[in-house]
């Protein structure tokens, strides 16, 4: 447990992604929200009412975990119906809610089966259906797709935003994957070492990270960085060489800065006159469908370039990598985005 000074307001009917590496605090934060753990300090409020210290049973919460958790001896129908039976709903109401959820999650053909006779995707759909029928105010999903096959993940990920939109609850969705956050949309809180480093609409957090940590958490492939020292009119790169005058640098005081840029903005062919050119050597190249990830060694730095097209790059090949200054984030010594960097189109 290591959640440190987190303040978040999650609106009704909103989808909120908690994005961060393993152990960043995603699960800990969810457990506090659910009432499974009590905070050492601070409060949890629901519609203005302080619920800190309320046990999970008193709250209107549903949770979906990474592991597919279902009752193995019950049919899919009874699995989905179980929270409604506990709540003592009428048979007719149970029937109608289970049917609705089964339709949404494409489980209708499997309602009579036992969960263990289903694929992983269907098992997790069952768990999600059970969370939805409760009509809880707060639905927490802790890396729900992590144990699924790639293609199933793709399919469910496309359906989830629609399911969330139809429900009206507050959804909180934890993931380690930036691409998943982008596809889900909604809001994203980036987490690092128990702290929320930024919270806002997902595309905005992605395109305008306010600090270096957020930019790193929200980049996959990893964010490329290099440090520069500005003194007088000149800027020296940590990869060696001078940086020609770029607009973002002109307005900031002398000192050390970190430049960050994403892999798809590092190109191996020049495309404009005012680009920054970095001499490098190919370390290893990976082809993935229509694109190639080219890992580059530049001095002590390791960069990743995501370049279009499928091409063989032999290790050791000397190359020049280019990045357009308008794609740079400029962070000060404390890792904060400089004012000059904010106007950049650095996504």
């Amino acid at each position, binding site marked *: 447990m290591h959640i440190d000074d987190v303040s978040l307001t999650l609106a009704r009917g909103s989808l909120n992604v908690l994005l961060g590496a393993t152990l960043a605090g995603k699960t800990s934060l969810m457990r506090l929200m659910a009432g499974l753990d009590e905070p050492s300090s601070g409060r949890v409020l629901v519609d203005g009412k302080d619920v800190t210290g309320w046990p999970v049973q008193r709250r209107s919460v549903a949770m979906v975990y990474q592991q597919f958790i279902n009752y193995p001896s019950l049919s899919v129908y009874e699995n989905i119906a179980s929270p409604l039976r506990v709540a003592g709903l009428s048979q007719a109401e149970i029937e109608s809610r289970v049917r609705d959820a089964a339709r949404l999650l494409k489980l209708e053909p499997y309602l009579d089966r036992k969960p263990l006779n289903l694929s992983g995707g269907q098992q997790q759909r069952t768990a999600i259906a059970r969370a939805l029928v409760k009509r809880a105010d707060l639905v927490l999903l802790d890396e729900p797709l992590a144990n699924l096959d790639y*293609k199933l993940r793709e399919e469910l990920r496309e359906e989830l935003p629609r399911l969330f939109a139809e429900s009206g609850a507050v959804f909180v969705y934890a993931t380690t994957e930036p691409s998943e956050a982008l596809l889900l949309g909604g809001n994203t809180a980036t987490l690092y070492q128990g702290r929320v480093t930024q919270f806002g609409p997902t595309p905005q957090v992605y395109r305008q990270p306010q600090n270096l940590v957020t930019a790193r958490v929200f980049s996959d492939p990893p964010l490329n960085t290099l440090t520069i020292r500005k003194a007088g009119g000149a800027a020296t790169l940590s990869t060696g060489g001078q940086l020609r005058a770029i607009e973002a640098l002109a307005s900031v005081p002398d000192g050390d800065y970190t430049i960050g840029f994403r892999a798809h903005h590092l190109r191996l062919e020049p495309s404009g006159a005012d680009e920054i050119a970095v001499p490098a050597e190919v370390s290893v190249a990976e082809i993935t469908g229509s694109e190639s990830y080219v890992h580059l060694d530049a001095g002590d730095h390791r960069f990743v370039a995501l370049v279009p097209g499928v091409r063989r790059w032999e290790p050791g090949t000397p190359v020049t990598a280019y990045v357009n200054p308008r794609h740079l984030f400029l962070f000060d010594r404390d890792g904060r985005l400089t004012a000059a960097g904010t106007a950049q189109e650095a996504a």
Partner: protein
Amino acid sequence: MARITLDHLAHAYKPDPQVPQDYALKEINHVWSQGGAYALLGPSGCGKTTLLNIISGLVRPTRGRILFDDRDVTDLPTESRNIAQVFQFPVVYDTMTVRENLAFPLKNRHVPKDRIVQRVDEIARLLDLTPVLGRKASNLTADMKQKISLGRGLVRPDVAAILFDEPLTVIDPHLKWQLRSTLKEIHRALDITMIYVTHDQTEALTFADKVVVMHDGAVVQTGTPDELFARPAHTFVGHFIGSPGMNILPCRVEGATAYLGHEPVALQRGYRNLPQNERVELGIRPEFVQLQPKGAGLPVRVRRIDDIGRARIARVEMDGRLLAASVPDNLSVSGEEASLRLDPHHIHIYADGRLVAGEPLGGYAA
């Protein structure tokens, strides 16, 4: 180090298999070269784990043989096959130091001490484990433990092959990047045959020189990553490789024209000899389908635009079917009505799921 030959291999878990559906692994014939990096890629239940277990000796195949170089190992137990394995979850001895863990497979085989030290140092350097060599494994994170497992798999220089079964499952995305490129560098440095089982196309395509795509117990295509992308031999490969996968649309083909409903699409090749009574489909990857303003191509309705950060993907509907298309950077999308432009060089025609080669147009068509 070995060449691996799969000779008329097939496996059924039930006794006395009769029909193809009884086989978890349908007949497969393959030769994997010494020193190659191969991936077995497919969804759960496709037979990839069965195949891996046959290679490692955990499962004895119902039919066929498996050879390491010219030696028939079909009836040999795992320990006599001289292979190393890395599993999904870390297998480390908590009470040992990292160095002892890495040395263990060598010590068991009575490798001389100085040779062990040298080899462990080399592997630790490749995996960035040097700083923790003296630490107890029990206090390390799951990531680190899995690195130790990888190291133990890689440490023996004399193995016939190293088998990886979804080895990066427990690894965080950021570290995955690093480990994937490390594994590739190690493969290059060690010249050992490596077989990597995964359901993750990115892992398969980035790791392997040759990817074996499996579906429903059979190999549907073996190819380099660019072949799988550019010329999927089966609609399943088109769908499974790529994210989003290939658009696959039922069509009718007359000579060098495909009809999607009533809309004609010009093709680069002729298809005079399409088999009768088979399902004919047109396949094209979203990368080669561009969203355009209304009137500039095939009419569609835009259902959604996904912003994936470095690009936008349009989800559109044509005759009740959903397609994915790329959105050019400078195109602003307004309203539902739009059109698609298909790059004719990247259109493929499939009959009952299998790629049809077609004939060059030159002779008879304009």
